[in-house]
């Protein structure tokens, strides 16, 4: 992959993410029917439709921060429910991380995810093991930071993030929900994968695919 990830590659990543969510709408609905109010699939699909429209619009900014901020606003208005504000916060905070203007390097990409995660935790007040999207995103960001500290290549950093996100998502099956609507079920939430952790996993799955395959943009 290129040394720098440009705004256009970020755009391709989020288009891939939107497509992946839309493919998985029924899966998300099924997961949310088991332990939530069955609206995560529909809400995310609606938001991703809006995001696709926004991203296909040629008028987007080349500036990484402005681009991420516009993604955040689209998700806030398009997704709704609790997921809209939470994903919106993730990208709004990601938009405040350091960039090189129209691109980010690997360290900045990692920081971007870290800023997003910190914002998400502050806003949603969830911790690890509460059975939320944090259980996917936190281990993924920590894996990125560890791989980066060990001077690994971008491909390894992103593969590590994806693997950690996958394990984190799967782990939500084993644990009891302590945040969100599923927490009302108490121990009955055990045995079900968290829908928010699932939609968040696709962020890292598509990041690994897009940022390591497109090469120089």
């Amino acid at each position, binding site marked *: 992959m290129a040394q720098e990830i440009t705004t256009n590659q970020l755009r391709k990543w989020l288009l891939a993410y939107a497509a992946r969510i839309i493919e998985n709408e029924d899966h998300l609905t099924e997961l949310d029917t088991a332990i939530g109010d069955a609206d995560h699939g529909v809400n995310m699909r609606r938001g991703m439709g809006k995001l696709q429209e926004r991203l296909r619009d040629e008028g987007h900014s080349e500036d990484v921060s402005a681009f991420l*901020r516009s993604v955040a*606003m689209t998700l*806030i*208005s398009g997704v709704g429910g609790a997921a809209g*504000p939470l994903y*919106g*916060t993730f990208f*709004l905070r990601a938009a405040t991380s350091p960039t090189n203007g129209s691109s980010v390097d690997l360290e900045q990409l990692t920081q971007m995810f870290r800023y997003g995660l910190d914002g998400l935790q502050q*806003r949603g*007040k969830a911790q690890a093991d509460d059975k939320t999207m944090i259980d996917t995103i936190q281990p993924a960001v920590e894996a990125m930071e560890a791989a980066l500290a060990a001077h690994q290549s971008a491909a390894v950093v992103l593969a590590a993030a994806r693997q950690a996100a996958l394990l984190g998502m799967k782990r939500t099956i084993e644990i009891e929900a302590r945040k969100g609507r599923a927490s009302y079920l108490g121990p009955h939430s055990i045995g079900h994968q968290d829908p928010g952790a699932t939609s968040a996993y696709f962020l890292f799955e598509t990041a690994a695919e897009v940022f390591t395959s497109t090469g120089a943009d």
Partner: protein
Amino acid sequence: MQSLMNKPGSAITQSLRGMALCHPDTIKVHFDPDYVERLAPARSGKVAVISGSGSGHEPLPIGYVGLGMLDAACPGPIFTSPSPVQLLAAVHSVDHGGGVLFVVKNYSGGVLNTELTIEIASQEGIDARYVLVNDDVSIPKVANRRGLGAATLACKIAGAAAESGYSLDAAVRVTRRAIAASRSMGVGTNVNTLPRNGPADNLADDSIELGVGIHGEPGEVRSVTKGMPEIVDLIVQPILDDLPFASGDRVLLLISGMGGTPPLELYLFSEAIHEILAERRLRVERQLIGNYLTCLGRGGYTISLMRLDDELLRLWDAPVHTPVLHW
């Protein structure tokens, strides 16, 4: 026909349209995103006071829009927080350059959406803050206490402070003080009716439900057989003990029906409340009795007391012109 609200999806829009027609001199209703704005002009630099709430608690908050109270209110879906899109639209519409103060009941959705709205507004250079209403004494842990009648009181205090020239800092401070001086308890006498669900099981004739929320959250069912003094004691004592209110305190008493209790019953109930407050030598200086925050058609009440001082009393008495409160 159980209700004219049999189509929950459009009930809120229709109700807002009706409200605009009923109060054409006081409010303006905007749709998509939905918010209600006051018509009275505000001076430049005035703090703008906004409150959002799930629908189903009317007149809170939309009935409190107007001079001396809210600059705007955002109604969400039934019992569901309004979105940041609504809240931001209201901010952009009513920001007069003096900053924005949100009055937020302590429920996770409302706090989440307000905090995000404030973050976005701040990035746009608008100074926005919020005060959290958490007056429900039925919940032991203070951080988890829900917002009840103090939401109505806080909207009045914040609005009066803003109208009389308080800075954002000062308006935040006095509104927090008003909330800190307020305690409430919700009591259910029969159960909730949601438009989609129809009526559910009722409470037994000799039972009340103590500590109910305003979204149908259950309370503790208590059998009461010794009549009104026993009932009132169960309700009022936890309020008095919590602040605690002391002999000689000046208080504001708010008795609000939850939507399914007739005014006759509210006044009947108020007699025993007044007796117990007189017994404890509390001085009831101001009162509101009626439907001021509701839970759709649920039977029951919320009782709130706010300890008054000169400043709170002055702000309470300040002129107000809204669809519901006007003096």
